[in-house]
């Protein structure tokens, strides 16, 4: 029952998110709005109910599984990918590396600037 209650809660928030996004015609995906609303609820309640904790850890611990059917979709796009394989593969590789390195660099520098330096100059592994 426990897991089921948590799962139901997540679906209710997603549903409310999807409906709100459509009613107000805001350009945010429904699940993202659902997440924001659940976050606000948790802030107000001040604790995570156990069923919700169980359901969310179950989903998040197998997050990579959930991307598998979309990945298999590659076979439906074989010919297009073959046509433009060079821009696709190089862009995927380079842009992901650039994004990762730049974001890490910016986060590293801004943490040093804006956050009171912790013991060890803010660089230590906590």
């Amino acid at each position: 029952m426990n897991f089921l209650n948590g799962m139901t809660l997540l679906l209710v928030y997603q549903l409310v998110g999807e409906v709100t996004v459509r009613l107000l015609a805001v350009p945010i995906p429904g699940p993202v709005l659902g997440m924001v609303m659940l976050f606000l609820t948790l802030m107000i309640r001040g604790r995570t109910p156990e069923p919700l904790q169980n359901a969310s850890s179950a989903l998040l611990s197998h997050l990579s599984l959930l991307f598998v059917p979309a990945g298999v979709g590659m076979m439906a796009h074989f010919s297009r990918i073959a046509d433009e394989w060079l821009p696709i593969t190089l862009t995927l590789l380079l842009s992901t590396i650039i994004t990762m390195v730049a974001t890490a660099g910016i986060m590293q520098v801004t943490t040093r600037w804006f956050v009171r330096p912790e013991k060890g100059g803010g660089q230590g592994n906590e």
Partner: protein
Amino acid sequence: MNEPAIRDIWVYLSASPLLGLTITLVAYGLAYRLYLKAHSNPLANPVVTSVALLIAFLLATGTEYDEYFEGGQFVHFLLGPATVALAVPLYQQFSRLRQLWLPVTISLVSGVVIAAGSSIALAWLLGGSREIQMSLAPKSATAPVAMGIAETIGGIPSLTAVLVVATGIVGAVLGTKLFEWMRITDDSVKGIAMGVASHGIGTARAFQVSSQMGAFSGLAMALSAFATALIVPWLVDLIGI
């Protein structure tokens, strides 16, 4: 069993979602076991192995992707509630987040702009069509979000889903090496970069490094999904393509 009986069984299976769903879970189970056998080496990423196994199976049996997806959609659907579930680690890391809100906001917004900007620019430089550029632009956001954005800016949503998965894999495989090379040891920095660049697949990898890196990656994935939805359509308008 005789030939017609086998054919009848196959007709039943290919028309029902049972087979697609079952092979997805079996392939992932095998891939995950292989990943553990390889001592969680990022090169043995379970998404790569399961996608390869499934494509090989579908091609060998002559099954169309749409038929497979009748079953695969049940797994795919859970990406929605999983996005909502990110509110939980977000809430639990909130005190740490409040301390870091300014660096996190700056890194997140710049990361989202760099991800989309560099994709469009590189694809354009390398001679990719506009459709490909627009399908690549939201690739660092999590699948349901990226697909929605691709649709509004003129990309191909189902192709974007594939590119999203590939981006996640690239980040999960290379991320820890890149951070080592940059000599970054702070888990909050690594987590934010992982989540911004490679969403859920990167987050799954981050949780294996440490729970703090995982929580920050989940946080970055959640917030960048939100930021990508707001920024990317506007960015595309701005550069006028």
